[in-house]
C-alpha cells in the first residue's frame, strides 16, 4: 500500500440545505405591506411549501463549504481540451454588475436603452471584423444553441431557393458531439466523414458524399485533434461545388484571433463561444453565449431581431439604435436579447485587447499548447507529428502498464491539476485532450508536464496508485452505476419536519 493510501481521509460531507433547515428560520425579511390585503380564492391557494428554512449565516456557510469542494480556474490550472478554460478577468465581472446595465429591462423602449443597444451594435461589428462575416446575431445562448441557429439558417437558405431535397449534413469524425445533435434536431440525416492519416478531413471520402442532397458540412477547424486542416480551402470548395454550405464550429476560435478570419476562407456560418474565446466564466456549466456570424447571402435568415441603426441622426442628434427584423428570418431562438450580461464581459475583454492583443492571445495559446506537446511527446504518444494549434491530443497509455487515460486523469488531481478532457475525441485511443490557453505561464506548464511525466513513472512502478486515484482530494471516485440505477435526483425535508406556522 502506498503512503498516500494510508492517510485516512476525514469525512467531509456537507449536509443538504434540507438537512440544515430548522422551522421558523429565515435568511431575509421584507417590509410590511403598505396596501390592503387582497383575498386569493381558496381553490387556487397552495397548502404547503416544503422548502428549507435557514438563517443568512447558515446559507453562507453551506455554500462556502460547498465552494471548497470545487476546482476552478481561480484556483489552478484547468487544461480541459476544447473548453478554453482561460483566466476570467475580474473587471469583466464588475462591468456586468454596473446598475446601468443590470437594472435594464429587456422590453424597455429603445430610447431608454441606447447605451445597451449601441454596445450590442458595436459588439456585432467587432465580431464581424474578427471573423470576416457580413452579419452577426448575438441572440444564441451557448455554443450548441448557436449551432442549432446556424443549421436552421442553412436549412432555411436551401428551402428559400426551393431546394427541398437537401437533407444530408456531412460531419467529420473529429467534430464536437453537439454537431450531429444539432443537425438531428432539425431533422437532417447525418453522414460521418473520416479523417485522413494526417488528421485532416479525408478529401476523397468527402467528395464521394457530395451530391445535390447535401445541406452542408459542419467543420471544426482547428479540429478536435487541435490540428488546422491543411486542405481547408479544398474542403470548402468541394462543398460549395455541390451547392452545400459550410458551417464553422467556432469553439476553437481561440487559435485564430488575428491569425485567420474564418469568413475569408469561405466558411458560410459560424458560432462564437464568448465563454471560451472571449474569457467569460463558465459558471460551473453556464451561462455561455453563442453569437452566430454569416455571409451576406445568409444575412436575411438571421434570428430576429438583430441590433441596427434605425435612425441615422444628424449633426446634432446621434444615431438611434434599435431592433431590425431580417427579411427571411428563421425567427427567434430565445426570448429577449441574448445573454447580455455575458456579452458585456466579452465586450470589455475585446475592448481592452485591441487588434494586437487579440492576435497575441492566439499566438500564446498556440505557443503554450506546442510547448506542452513538445515536453510530453516522449512520454505520451501523440498520434500526429505536426505543429498543433491551441490544443493537442495525446494517448493516455503507458507502455508496460495497464493504467488507462482515466487513471492518469484522476491521478493528476493529486498533483492539484484539473485533468485534461479524456476519451474525446473518439478517434484517438485513450485520448487526453490538453488545452492550456494563453493565460498560463511557463512555470505552471512545466509543473504540469513534470507531474504527467512522474505519473507515467508511477504507472509502471505502482499502477494501483493510479487505479485508486485520486487520494488527496476531499472525495474519491464515485459509484456512477449506483447513481444511474437508484436515480436519487432530489431530496426533501425530513418526514417529521413541522413548519413553524
Amino acid at each position, binding site marked *: 500500500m502506498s503512503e498516500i493510501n494510508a492517510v485516512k481521509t476525514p*469525512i467531509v460531507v456537507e449536509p443538504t*440545505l434540507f438537512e440544515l433547515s430548522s422551522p*421558523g428560520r*429565515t435568511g*431575509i*425579511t421584507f417590509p410590511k*405591506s*403598505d396596501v390592503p390585503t387582497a383575498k*386569493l380564492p381558496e381553490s*387556487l391557494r*397552495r397548502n404547503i411549501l416544503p*422548502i*428549507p428554512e435557514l438563517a*443568512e449565516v447558515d446559507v453562507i456557510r453551506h*455554500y*462556502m463549504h*460547498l465552494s471548497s469542494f470545487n*476546482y476552478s480556474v481561480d*484556483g489552478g490550472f484547468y487544461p480541459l481540451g476544447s473548453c478554453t478554460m482561460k483566466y476570467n478577468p475580474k473587471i469583466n*465581472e464588475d462591468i*456586468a454588475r*454596473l446598475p446601468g446595465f443590470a437594472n435594464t429591462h*429587456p422590453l424597455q423602449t429603445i430610447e*431608454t436603452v441606447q*447605451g445597451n443597444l449601441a454596445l450590442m451594435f458595436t459588439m456585432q461589428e467587432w465580431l464581424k471584423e474578427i471573423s470576416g462575416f457580413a452579419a452577426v446575431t448575438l441572440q444564441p*445562448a*451557448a455554443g*450548441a444553441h448557436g449551432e442549432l441557429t446556424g443549421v*436552421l439558417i442553412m*436549412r432555411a437558405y436551401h428551402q428559400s431557393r426551393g431546394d427541398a431535397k437537401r437533407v444530408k449534413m456531412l460531419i467529420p469524425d473529429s467534430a464536437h458531439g453537439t454537431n450531429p*445533435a444539432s443537425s438531428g434536431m*432539425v431533422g437532417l440525416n447525418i453522414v460521418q466523414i473520416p479523417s485522413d492519416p494526417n488528421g485532416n478531413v479525408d478529401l476523397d471520402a468527402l467528395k464521394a458524399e457530395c451530391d445535390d442532397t447535401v445541406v452542408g458540412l459542419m467543420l471544426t477547424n482547428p479540429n478536435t485533434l487541435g490540428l488546422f486542416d491543411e486542405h481547408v480551402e479544398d474542403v470548402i470548395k468541394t462543398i460549395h461545388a455541390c451547392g452545400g454550405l459550410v458551417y464553422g464550429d467556432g469553439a476553437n476560435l481561440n487559435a485564430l484571433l*488575428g491569425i*485567420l478570419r474564418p469568413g475569408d476562407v469561405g466558411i458560410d456560418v459560424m458560432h462564437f463561444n464568448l465563454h471560451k474565446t472571449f474569457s467569460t466564466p463558465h*459558471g*460551473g*456549466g*453556464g451561462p455561455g453565449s453563442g453569437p452566430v456570424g454569416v455571409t451576406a447571402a445568409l444575412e436575411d435568415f438571421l434570428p430576429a431581431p438583430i441590433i441596427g441603426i434605425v435612425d441615422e441622426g444628424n449633426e446634432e442628434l446621434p444615431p438611434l439604435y434599435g431592433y431590425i427584423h431580417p427579411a427571411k428570418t*428563421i*425567427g*427567434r*431562438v*430565445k426570448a429577449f436579447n441574448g445573454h*447580455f450580461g455575458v456579452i458585456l464581459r466579452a465586450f470589455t475583454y*475585446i475592448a481592452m*485587447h485591441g487588434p494586437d492583443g487579440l*492576435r497575441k492571445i492566439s499566438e500564446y495559446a498556440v*505557443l503554450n499548447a*506546442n*510547448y506542452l506537446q*513538445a515536453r510530453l511527446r516522449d512520454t505520451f504518444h501523440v498520434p500526429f507529428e505536426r*505543429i498543433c494549434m491551441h490544443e493537442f491530443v495525446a494517448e493516455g497509455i503507458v507502455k508496460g502498464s495497464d493504467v488507462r487515460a482515466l487513471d492518469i486523469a484522476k491521478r493528476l488531481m493529486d498533483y492539484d491539476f484539473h485533468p485534461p*478532457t479524456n476519451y*474525446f475525441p473518439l478517434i484517438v485511443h485513450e485520448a487526453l485532450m490538453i488545452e492550456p490557453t494563453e493565460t498560463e505561464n511557463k512555470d505552471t506548464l512545466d509543473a504540469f508536464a513534470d507531474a504527467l511525466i512522474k505519473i507515467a513513472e508511477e504507472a509502471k512502478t505502482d499502477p494501483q496508485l493510479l487505479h485508486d486515484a485520486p487520494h488527496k482530494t476531499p472525495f*474519491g471516485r*464515485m459509484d456512477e452505476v449506483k*447513481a444511474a440505477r437508484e*436515480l436519487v*435526483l*432530489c431530496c426533501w425535508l425530513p418526514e417529521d419536519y413541522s413548519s413553524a406556522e
Partner: protein
Amino acid sequence: MTYIPHSPNERDAMLETIGVKKLDDLFKDIPARHRFPDLNLPPTLSEMEAAAELAGYAEANETTQTMVSFLGAGAYRHYIPSAVDHILSRGEFYTAYTPYQPEISQGTLQSIFEYQSLMTLITGMEVSNASHYDGATAVAEAVNLAYAQFRGKRTKVIVSPSVHPQYRETLRTYTQGMGLSLVGDDARDDIDSGPKEIETLIDENTALVVVQYPDFFGRIFDYTELAAKVHQTGGLICVAVNPTALAILKTPGEMGADIVVGEGQPLGIPLSFGGPYLGFFTTLKKYIHKMAGRLVGETVDNRGQRSYVLTLTAREQHIKRDRATSNICTNQGLLALASAVYLSLLGQKGFKQVAELCYNKAHYAAEQINKIEGYSVCFDTPFFHEFSVCCPRPVSEINEHLLEHGIMGGYEVGKDYPSLKDRMLIAVTEMNSKEEIDLLVDVLKEVNHE
C-alpha cells in the same frame, strides 16, 4: 492590456523547446494569402480606460432603478438579497467548468442537486434537470420531450394564444424541421376565452398542449380539467409557470401537468436586459429518459461518503449524438445556483411574503386603475402580480406620457396582438411602493383628461 504572463525570455525558451524560431512559424498550416489579417478594431485599452468607457455606455441607459417601473411581461424586478451575489462571486463557483470530474466538483454538483430538489418542490413535480437557457427554450424542449416520447408519431402541438409571444415564436423556430403542426394560436387575438377553447382542439394526434400559469396576461386558470382532457387521448400537457406565483398558488403538479417549465429570472437574477436568465424544466419520473439536459444524482464515493455525479448521461448529445432529444450542453449553471441561494435565503416564510406582497400590491393597483374614468381591468379572471388594462388611448401614447413623469409604463400588448393596441400589461412587485402606484394612477388620470 492582455492577460498573457510570458516574459520574452520565457517565450524564446519555449520556442526553442518546440524547435521553431519565432511565433509566426507556428502558423504555417494557415493559408498564406489569408494569414495574419489586419483587424480594424479600436486600439488596446488599460483597465482604467475600459472601466470608464463601459461606464459611459451604462450611463446612457435609463433603468428600473432610476425610474418607477411597471414593466414585466416575462422579466420581473424583485429584491435580490445581498448574499446571493456574494455566493455567485466566489471564483470556486463561477470559474469552474461543467462538473465532469466529480471528485473535484462536489460543490457544483451538490448545489445543482439541491436546485433540482427545490424546483420539483415548487412546481409539484418529480424530477428537474440542471437547467435550460431560458423560459422560452425550456418550452421548446418540452416539445422535444413530447416528440421523442411519441417517437414522432403524434404530430400536433396545441399552444395557447396566451403563452408568452416570444416563447411561441421560439417554439416555432425550434420545430421548423420536425414535421409538427403547431395549432391554437395562429394569428388569433381572441384571448378572452381561456382553457375551454383549447379543449376543443385536442385529438388522438395531439402530442402536447402548452399553456401558461399565470398566463401572459397575468390570469390564473385552474388547468385540472384541461389536463384530464389531454390525458383522455393520451397526450401530454406542459405548463409554463412564473415560479414566484407558485409560492402561494396551487401547483401545476396538483393539476395533473406532465411537464412544468418556466423562466427562473424572478428567483434572484437581475433583469440585465434580458439575460442570462434561467430556464427550469421539471417533469414526471416516467419521462426522464426523454428529458433533455444535465441531471445530477446522489451516490457514494469509494470512501463511503455521500456524493453526487452527473447521471443518465447516455441521454445526452455527446453519447447519443444525432438521436439525442436535444443538443443542449452548456446550460445556466450559475443562474441555477443563484435561484437556489435566493430560495434558501427566503425560505418558506420569505418566499410566501414576496408572493403575497406582489399579489396585494398588484390588486391594489388594479383596483385604483379600474376606478379611473376610461380605464378598466380587462378581465375578471383571478390574477397574480400582472394584469391587463384596457386604456382609452393607444398604449404607446400613454407610455410616452408616463415616461415624461419618470415612469416606465406597462407592456404594450398590441406589439404582439395587433388588435389589442389599447391594452397595457401592468406588473407590480414587492419593489413598487404604494406611493409609486398612486403616482402611476395620478399620471394615468392626467393622460385621460388631455
